C-alpha cells in the first residue's frame, strides 16, 4: 500500500523537494519542538529583543556590555522555534475528475508534495477531502517522512465525484487550527458556491492561506463549436439548471475567454486584498514545474 501511495510522486521530484521549504511569511504560534520561528520568545539562537531585568530573571541572560554602556540591566531575548501544523484541503468534486491527467490526481500529487515539504521542515501536515458539504480528514496529522509516506496511501485512495459545496465543506472542518501554519485549498474554483467565504473563513483562523487553482487545458481553451447541449459533470440530473443549450461560435468563445479572464482577475483581486497567496496551473504541466516554478513564484514555496 505504501508503494502505491508513493507512486503519487516520482523520486526525482522527491529529490528536488530536498532543497525547498514552505514559506511562512508571518510568525505563527504552533507547538513545541519544531523548527519554525514563532511569535514566542524562547531559547533559540536568533536574537529577538531586549527587556529590562526583573527580579527572578536568569542573570545569565543579562547583556553585560549593554549594562556597561547604559548602567542598566537588560535581558537578551531570543525567538522560540515551534512546530507548525499545515492543513491541505482538496476539492473532490466531480469537476476535478477532468483533464488528462485528471485535475484530481494533480491535486493529490500537489497535496502530497506540499506535505513532504512540511515534514521536511519538521512540521506536521493534515489532508482533508472536501466532499459534498463536509470536510473529511484523510489521515491523522503526520510528521516525519515515514508517516508521510504511510499517509500517501490514504491520500491515493481519495475518490472524487459529486457536487462539492466549497464554503460549507471548508467551514465544517473540525480542527482548522489557529495561528499554527498554512492552510492550502486546492480546487478549480469552477463553482457557483461561495469560495470567497471559504477563503475568508480560513484567513480568520490567523493562519496563512494559499489557494492553488488547477484547470485542464480544455477549460482554458475549449474546443467546442456548434449547437451543443453542455452537460455539467456536477449536475444532479437532466433537468439541472447547470446543463445548458448553447450555440457556440466565434462570439461565444470570445465571451468564454473574457469570462475566464474576469474570474482570474476576481481571484487575484480577492487574494491580494487578504494577503492570500494564489497560483493557477493546468493539469498537463509536470508536477515539478507546478511546485518549483508556480508555487515558488507565488511565494508559497521558497
Amino acid at each position, binding site marked *: 500500500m505504501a508503494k502505491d501511495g508513493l507512486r503519487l510522486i516520482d523520486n526525482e521530484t522527491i529529490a528536488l523537494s530536498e532543497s525547498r521549504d514552505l514559506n511562512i511569511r508571518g510568525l505563527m504560534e504552533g507547538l513545541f519542538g519544531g523548527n519554525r520561528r514563532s511569535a514566542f520568545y524562547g531559547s533559540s539562537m536568533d536574537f529577538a529583543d531586549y527587556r529590562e531585568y526583573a527580579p527572578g530573571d536568569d542573570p545569565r541572560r543579562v547583556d553585560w556590555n549593554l549594562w556597561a554602556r547604559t548602567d542598566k540591566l537588560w535581558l537578551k531575548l531570543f525567538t522560540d522555534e515551534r512546530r507548525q501544523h499545515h492543513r491541505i484541503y482538496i476539492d473532490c468534486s466531480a469537476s476535478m*475528475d477532468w483533464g488528462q491527467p485528471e485535475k484530481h490526481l494533480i491535486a493529490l500529487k500537489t497535496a502530497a508534495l506540499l506535505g513532504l515539504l512540511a515534514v521536511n521542515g519538521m512540521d506536521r501536515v493534515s489532508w482533508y477531502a472536501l466532499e459534498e458539504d463536509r470536510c473529511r480528514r484523510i489521515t491523522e496529522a503526520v510528521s516525519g517522512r515515514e508517516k508521510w509516506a504511510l499517509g500517501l496511501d490514504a491520500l491515493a485512495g481519495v475518490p472524487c465525484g459529486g457536487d462539492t459545496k466549497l464554503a460549507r465543506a471548508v467551514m465544517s472542518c473540525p480542527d482548522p487550527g489557529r495561528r499554527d501554519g498554512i492552510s492550502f485549498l486546492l480546487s478549480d474554483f469552477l463553482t*457557483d458556491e461561495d469560495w470567497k467565504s471559504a477563503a475568508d473563513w480560513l484567513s480568520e483562523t490567523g493562519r496563512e492561506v494559499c489557494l492553488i487553482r488547477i484547470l485542464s487545458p480544455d477549460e482554458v481553451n475549449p474546443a467546442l463549436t456548434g449547437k451543443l447541449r453542455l452537460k*455539467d*459533470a456536477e449536475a444532479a440530473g437532466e433537468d439541472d439548471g*447547470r446543463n445548458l443549450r448553447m*450555440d457556440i461560435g466565434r462570439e461565444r468563445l470570445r465571451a*468564454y475567454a473574457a469570462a475566464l479572464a474576469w474570474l482570474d482577475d476576481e481571484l487575484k483581486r480577492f487574494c491580494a486584498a487578504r494577503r492570500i497567496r494564489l497560483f493557477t496551473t493546468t493539469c498537463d504541466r509536470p508536477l515539478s514545474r507546478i511546485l518549483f516554478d508556480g508555487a515558488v513564484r507565488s511565494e508559497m514555496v521558497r
Partner: protein
Amino acid sequence: MTFQNPRGLWLLLGVPVLVLIWLIRPPYQERRVSSSYIWRLSERFMKKRLPVSRIRKWLVFLLQLLLVSGAAFLAARPVLNHGGRVDYLLILDASASMRTVTENGNTRYEEAGEQIRELARRSTAEGHTVSVIRAGDRAEFLVRESASAKEITDAVNGTLCGWGTSALSGAMTLAQLFLYDHPGAEVILFTDQAAGTCDGIEVVSLDGGEWNAALTDLMASKDGAGGMKLSASLSSWGRDADITVGLTVNGRLTDSVNVSCPANEAQSVAFTLADAETVTEAVLFIDPGDALEADNRIVCCPENERICDTLLVSETPFYLSAAVNALDRGRVKLTSPGSDGAAERDYDLYVYDGCLPDMLPEAGAVLLIDPPRAPEGMTFLGTAEEAGSMTASAASGLAGEGLLTNMKLREIAVSRHTIADASDDWVAVCSVEQDPVFLTRTMENGTLLCVLLFDLHDANLPLTTDFICLMRNLMNAAVPPLLDRRIVTVGERVTVNAAPGTEKIRVTSPVGAVTEPETDEGGNVKLRPDEAGLYRVMCGGEETGFFAAIPAGESAPGRLDDLTLLPGESGEEEETEAASGLWRIAAAVLLAVLLTEWEIYIYEQQY
C-alpha cells in the same frame, strides 16, 4: 402564365425534403463538460445581439426554401403572356427534297406553304403575329411579325422551292436572334426531315414516306482506245424496285439496262461508249414514276482537250518532243537555240532547254529548263553536286497543285542542280534537299513562267510518266479547259476560262434563261448554278455545258439532330426564363445549399 418546361416543377419536391432535413437533424449535440460555470458566466460578456442574428437560422432556412422554389420556378420556364399575344416564328425548309410530290399531287413545299397560310389565318384572327423564315440556299425572313394573313400568304406564295440544301443552321441563328427579342415565341419548323433531338422548336414533318429513285455520282472517264466509260449510282429510297436506266448520246437513245434495286442500297450502273470524240452530250435517265423528278436525270458534256501549240527550243529535244508528241495537243515545232525559229511567238507553250531568250513570250506558258542565267527575280548561287530526291514543296500552294496534277513524284532523283535565291514573286513547286528546283511565277502580262533548275540529263524525271503529266499540266496551264468542272452540285462554283480577248460569254440556264455574265481581268467567269439541270455555255464560238445536280443528300430521307434553341432573356412585359438543363439547375441549387451550410459551419468554427 404557362410553363414551357413543366418537368422543372419536380424540383419543388426539394421543399418537403428540405423541411424534413431541418426537422430530423439533431438541433443540439450533447457534450459533457467539467463545469458549465464559465459558460454561464460568459453570458454577461456576450455582445448584445441584433434581432436579425437571433433569427439567423430561420433566415437561412427561408433562403434555402426560396432557392429551391425559385430554381423549380425558373426550371419550369414560366411564360407571362401579356394580352394573350403569341409570336409565331415559322421556318420553311426550301431544300430540293421539298420538291417531292405527295399523295395529294402537291409538292411538300406546297403542302408546307398551305399549312403556313392556314396557321397565319388562324393566328392573325386571334391577334397573334407570324414571322416566316425561308431556309433555302440561304436563310432569310419572308415576313416579320405580321398580323396580316394576306401579307403572310402573299410572302409565302411568292417563293419557290430551292434546288440545293436548306440553310437550316442560318435559319436557326435567325430564330435564336428572334427569340432573344421575343422571349416566349413559338418556333415551328416545316421540313421533310425526321425530327431527332430538337429542343425549343416544334417540328412539323412533311415526309409522307414517298418513294424516290435517284441517279447520282456520275463519273466519266476515257479509256486508251478512244472510248468512254460512264458510271453512276442508282438508289431506291423507301422500297425495292426494278428500274430501267437509259442512256442517250447526243439526243439519241443508245442503251438501257434494268437494275434490281433493293431499298436504301446504292447500285452501280455503267455504260461504255465506243467513240468518245463524237460525244457532246450523254444523258443517263430513269423514269420510274417516283415522287422526286429532280434526281432522275444526269447529263455529261465531255470536253475534248483544247489545242495547244508548242515551241521546243533545245539542242537535245528527244525527251521533250517524245512527251509533247505523245500528248498530241496541237502543232509542235522543234528548233535549236539561236535559230530564227526560237524567236517565234504564236505558240501557247514555249519550252527553252538550256537556253534563255532575251525576250520572253508575252502570252501562254513558258518552261525554262536549266537556264544558263537566272531569269528576272532570281539569282544563281552555285551548283549542288549531291544527288537527292525531288519532292513537292510544302509552300507550293494552289499554283503548285495545278502543275503537279496527277504527278506521283516517286523516286525522282536529281544528281546535280542549280542553287538559286528567288524573290517572293516565285513559288517553289518542287525541291531537292530543301533547295527549290522547280519554281513558277505569273508575270505581269499574265504569262506563266516555270523554271526547272537542273538538266534533264541529270535526272530520271524524263524517264517517268510524271514527265508527261508535267507537260500536260503545263499545256493545261497555257490553254486551260473552257470549264473547270462538268458536273457540279447546285450552289457549287464553276469557272469559265475564256480565251483572252473573248468579248461575250452566254449562259443558258436549264429553264432557258439566258445571261451574259461579265468576265474578270483574266477573262474568266465564275458561275454559281442555283437550279438543277444542264447549263449551256457559249464562249467565243465554242459551245459546251455543265450539269448541276441536286445534292445527293436531298434524294434520301434526312434526319434533324441537335437542333436547340435557347429560351430568350426575361423581359419586363414578356416572360421569365431559366438556364437550360434541369439537372444543371438542380446541381447548382444543391451546391448553393451546401455552400450556405458550409459558410455557416466555417463562421462557427472561426475564433
